[in-house]
């Protein structure tokens, strides 16, 4: 293999598994260390810069970082990255003082944002400090998008959401709430320099089954129903409730139903339990609230007697897989199943819907009625119109919407300044030695053995009778510290200097997880099999040195390195050093060096 080019920031970026997996590339280990030091305000600001909604995300994020966390490869469970974010948000001091302070000098450009969800709010935050006049439209009465209308208060208290939405609105955003945008053409005609579409995927799917029309009074589309609950148009539900669907919306529906008077709430899903789309922790929370999940049942019809919904009929199926692993649900035979219900909530997916976008504006739509959007710049085929969040490629999650918002903001800014969208700003990177003394490091190098800590919950006697009572209590200071200590500091990189190495083997011998080998060079496939423990995880890179004196090379498999620093402590010549790698995605308001020109 060729020697690894560690000057390319992407190499070490990939070693920081959590940050790499985060769509917004939040510098996770950096904020976790700050939490361990009780520097909650600083930890919050590291988050706020990257993901804009630390308090919201610390409670609700889909956490793609956690399955990626290195600790999960050596220990039973990953670090509770998401809930540590909440520790920062719960305990922070005055963060507003650290945020950009308006009023900002206008730059003469006007931008419209349609939809006030996380993607639009991110664009607003990134552009406002640059002097843009920003107009934010939403048909709801308040900002936040689905974070407000969909995510229930028992998972995300309104106060937390309000606070973080207001940090952005306070930057001088012109809000146009309670205003449905019925024509993009009209909006464009208002003289905006550019428009960002962050309108989400607001249409819930229905199920066209026999009896659906007759039962209409007691059948509700999940996301509409949740919005009605959030805005207090709906305050109760029948005692017996069926929730159809196996995703996170279904989980929010069933748990909300339990709080609005549902006593026997059942989730019925077509697929096997293990294959449900809902996150494992959401399923656990539903089970904890005495909600059975009945899997392998396909809905067939609504049973209505005397114009009153009585329940639903289901067919029992099992999953079979063809040789390509494609699933088919086949009936198992036997009688259909009747389940009683006073109300049914349909949570079987949501779709995009752009009835308000005229099709003659130069915005290309595909056969699924989705706009053609550039995956890097987020521009549509109309150079003035940008898309992001769920509006771009269908329903995802808040953190993805935020990541889109950052990139779209950069594009909007480049566009308004007449520059090429394709010249993206490089990330901010820094690499600093952590050496303090012969065997002393500026970070806590010792690896703790603790198992993952469980977030305490409020008693369900209390939470089930009050829709707004938050279920999770969050970690206290001490547990937060202990959980933070579980982090392996993957951003503290092992950096190797070939010219210093005397090939004494000390690093290879001490490494607890057998990461380091000294061997003849070979091509990657062979090299992977020649190491002390073969490097079977192909998603993780090899770090290969220049040839050493003996013509061999040092090869480090990055897969299960604990970043414990023992290799560097054992090296007599400091050929290994532990260096903190800071990688931060450049945002419109922080980066763009060209602004200075």
């Amino acid at each position, binding site marked *: 293999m060729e020697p690894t080019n560690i000057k390319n920031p992407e190499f070490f970026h990939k070693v920081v598994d959590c940050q790499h997996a985060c769509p917004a590339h939040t510098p996770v280990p950096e904020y976790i260390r700050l939490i361990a030091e009780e520097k909650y305000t600083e930890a919050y600001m590291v988050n706020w810069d990257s993901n804009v909604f630390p308090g919201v995300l610390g409670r609700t994020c889909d956490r793609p970082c956690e399955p990626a966390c290195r600790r999960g490869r050596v220990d039973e469970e990953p670090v509770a990255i998401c809930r540590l974010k909440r520790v920062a948000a719960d305990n922070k001091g005055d963060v507003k003082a650290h945020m950009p302070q308006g009023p900002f000098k206008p730059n003469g450009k006007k931008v419209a944002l349609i939809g006030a969800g996380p993607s639009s709010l991110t664009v607003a935050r990134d552009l406002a400090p640059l002097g843009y006049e920003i107009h934010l439209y939403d048909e709801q009465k308040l900002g936040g998008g689905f974070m407000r209308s969909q995510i229930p208060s028992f998972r995300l208290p309104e106060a937390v959401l309000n606070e973080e939405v207001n940090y952005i609105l306070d930057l001088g955003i012109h809000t146009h709430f309670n205003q449905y945008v019925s024509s993009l053409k009209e909006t464009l005609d208002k003289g905006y320099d550019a428009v960002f579409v962050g309108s989400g995927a607001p249409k819930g799917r229905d199920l066209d089954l026999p009896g659906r029309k007759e039962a209409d009074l007691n059948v509700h589309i999940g996301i509409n129903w949740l919005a009605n609950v959030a805005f207090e148009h709906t305050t109760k539900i029948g005692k017996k409730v069926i929730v159809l669907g196996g995703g996170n919306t279904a989980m929010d529906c069933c748990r909300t139903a339990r709080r609005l008077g549902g006593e026997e709430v059942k989730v019925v899903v077509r697929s096997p339990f293990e294959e449900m789309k809902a996150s494992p922790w959401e399923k656990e929370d539903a089970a904890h609230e005495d909600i059975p999940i009945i899997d392998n049942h396909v809905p067939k019809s609504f049973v209505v007697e005397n114009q009153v919904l009585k329940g639903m009929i289901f067919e029992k199926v099992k999953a079979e897989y063809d040789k390509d692993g494609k699933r088919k649900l086949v009936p198992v035979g036997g009688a259909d199943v009747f389940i009683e219900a006073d109300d049914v909530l349909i949570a079987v997916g949501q779709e995009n819907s752009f009835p308000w976008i005229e099709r003659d504006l130069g915005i290309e739509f595909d056969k699924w009625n989705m706009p053609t959007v550039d995956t890097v710049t987020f521009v549509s085929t109309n150079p003035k119109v940008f898309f992001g969040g769920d509006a771009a490629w269908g329903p995802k999650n808040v953190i993805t919407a935020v990541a889109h918002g950052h990139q779209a903001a950069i594009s909007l800014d480049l566009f308004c300044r007449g520059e090429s969208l394709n010249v993206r700003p490089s990330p901010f990177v820094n690499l600093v030695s952590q050496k303090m003394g012969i065997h002393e490091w500026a970070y806590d190098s010792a690896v703790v053995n603790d198992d993952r800590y469980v977030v305490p919950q409020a008693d369900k006697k209390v939470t089930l009778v009050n829709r707004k009572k938050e279920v999770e209590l969050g970690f206290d200071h001490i547990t937060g510290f202990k959980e933070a200590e579980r982090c392996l500091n993957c951003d503290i990189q092992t950096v190797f200097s070939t010219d210093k190495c*005397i090939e004494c083997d000390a690093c290879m011998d001490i490494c607890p997880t057998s990461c380091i080998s000294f061997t003849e060079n070979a091509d990657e496939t062979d090299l992977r099999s020649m190491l002390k423990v073969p490097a079977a995880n192909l998603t993780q890179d090899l770090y290969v040195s220049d040839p050493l004196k003996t013509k061999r090379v040092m090869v480090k498999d990055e897969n299960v390195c604990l970043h414990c620093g023992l290799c560097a402590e*054992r090296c007599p010549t400091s050929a290994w050093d532990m260096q903190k790698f800071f990688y931060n995605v450049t945002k419109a308001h922080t980066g763009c060096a060209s602004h200075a020109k």
Partner: protein
Amino acid sequence: MTYIKPKFRHPELPKNKLGYSVDHYEGALSTLCAGCGHDSISAGIIQAAYELNIEPHRLAKLSGIGCSSKTPAYFLSNSHGFNSVHGRMPSVATGAAMANRDLTYFGVSGDGDTASIGMGQFVHVVRRNLNMTYIVMNNGCYGLTKGQDSATADQGSKNKSGNVNLFESIDLASLAIELGATFVAQSFSGDKSQLVPLIKAAMNHPGFAFINVISPCVTFNNNLGSTKSYDYVRDHVEATATIDFVPQMQEISVDYGKGTQKNVTMHDGSVLQLHKLAEEWDPLDRQSAMNAVINAKAKNEILTGLLYVNPDAHDLHHMIKTSDHPLNSLTKADLCPGSAILVDINAELR
């Protein structure tokens, strides 16, 4: 300084026949200097014990005094151990082995511990062919007492403070061959591919197995002009042969071709498979082994690999006809066989 080694290991570490992965053979975190050759040898011992499927509690580690003699704390923490007096490891080993012949004895010593203060003990344990492995971690100095020249420092070798050694060195390997050792090898701490099979072969040898391992002292004897530094050893090392230890019942898979191939079958059917690099050397012939060492020395080479082996040697127990069973397993009936036997014994003495 980190004093605790993390408990996590590579999740795909293979297991040996006993179901142990290599970490079961580890010891405490070493307190030797970073980069000390001795730590590398410890890692080789751990690897060899793992590959040989040694039951840790069936092994006893013995040592004298020195940085080298501290190493038993850093490997095989599930085994028995005795850290004895400076240069006196052979007598402790002899006593232990006489009392319990069923354990595997593994001795670790230094060049000071063996070639200076312990020389008297060393020569006798060699000639008695005690069934043990005896490793000298040879750094040409007294590391623990801050690097004074030892008796194995080469004449003309320069130490860290610039002094040149005036005296002839003791060559422990040729001395061992001379005294009748039945397994003699030499190696380098920086070459585990050679060291590990040699340790395995030594542990499998049914008599005194001696390995002199050049092991640089990074702190006091790794300077320019020293003949025991990493650089000097790497530049001057020559091997008699590459060696593979093939356990009993395992098929021999490598064939290096006629002339250079030499297989030595051990008492238990395991095989030392040698790919000879030195000409006119026969590992079964003492004279040729001595010649090989002397010739290499004349050329300023450090000869490593297996030097000499006598697979049919008889160990001390055999020679002095001791009890077939460990003393701790003898019962009262064995020890007090009764008056009839006493009558027979007395009759023999008449």
